[in-house]
């Protein structure tokens, strides 16, 4: 299976500034019309994680404006997004690839806790 790695600018900077973690935690998020599962994800401040995305139907997108990251989620592929949250708080994410009726409601929240 072809795999893609998307590395956001914020995440890249963070990885260079923090001590190495023995193993990055992987968080799997499934996308389907018109939900993310899970749509609430809790991350630890400063902990590198890999978000793994798959889609059950059509091309989707993942975008979190506040954390400066996005990914295309293509059918039959696993999209990976390395992320090291640099600030605590609740940050919304959404599908930024139009996928049909109720696309506008396809969203979730990343909770970054200290």
């Amino acid at each position: 299976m072809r795999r893609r790695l998307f590395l956001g600018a914020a995440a890249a900077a963070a990885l260079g500034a923090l001590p190495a973690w023995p193993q990055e935690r992987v968080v799997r998020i499934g996308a389907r019309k018109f939900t993310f599962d899970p749509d609430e994800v809790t991350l630890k401040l400063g902990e590198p994680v890999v978000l793994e995305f798959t889609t059950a139907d059509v091309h989707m997108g993942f975008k979190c404006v506040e954390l400066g990251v996005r990914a295309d989620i293509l059918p039959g592929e696993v999209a990976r997004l390395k992320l090291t949250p640099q600030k605590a708080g609740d940050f919304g994410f959404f599908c930024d690839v139009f996928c049909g009726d109720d696309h506008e409601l396809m969203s979730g929240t990343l909770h970054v806790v200290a």
Partner: protein
Amino acid sequence: MALDRRQFLKLAGIGGAVVVSGCARPSGDSYSADADEFFFVQLSDTHWGFRGAPNPEAANTLPKAIAAVNALETQPDFIVFTGDLTHTTDDPKERRRRLAQFKELVAALKVKDLRFMPGEHDGSLDRSEAFQEFFGATHYTFDHKGVHFVALDNVSDPAARIGEEQLAWLKRDLDAQPADARIVVLTHRPLFPLYPQWDWATGDGDRALELLMPRKNVTVFYGHIHQEHHFKTAHIEHHAAKSLVFPLPAPGSQPKRVPIAWDPEHPYRGLGFRQIEAEAPVEYKLTELPVAKA
């Protein structure tokens, strides 16, 4: 006593607030000899085919808007539709059925010079294939009485990008215009990042603005956000139009961008269309008009 169009509008007091463009009148510039005053109408986000609680009168809203435009004392030179003519559907046959019904409905407009562009509901699921069957190209230019109009497509790519090919086309078109050209851009999504958290942006809109920025007389009219909104990026004005299906909340004013609920006490509130008076040399007067008189 015969009234000219401006006198009529002033006396009739149609619609809501009048917003006067902040464009400065430059001095010492030359303008096209055929520059003239005229006005056009912008309709946006009609979402033909929508059914739901946010607008229980959805099947009647577009016909009412068409009747309201036809009732204008003076008819506009032309009418632009800035996207989301139809509400999205996964079924290609149903999409074409809605586009066909829409086309049939707007044929009742007295004005026959109509300019269409797609919204993501029309074009993002099939890269505007069906839209083009009914309405032709998704990006194009036309000139009217000294104003150069550019219709930009930022929806056929479902990721809301204009794309390299169209940006190159835009650059070629702008390069061919005189330095003091009056340019109006028509598009669906905001070209600037109005509120990216709600996807109210264009992925590569900054590239388009970069090309437009050296031009001193540029105004953008768009839709997508279902509300009147005015913003400036440097000297470029951006004016969003109301919808003709349901209003959306102000950017970032609530957690989710869900439609504002239909108010049976005030049906059609928050919906409307816009009249734009283009006055030489570079001023635009906007008048917001309701679907139905209160």
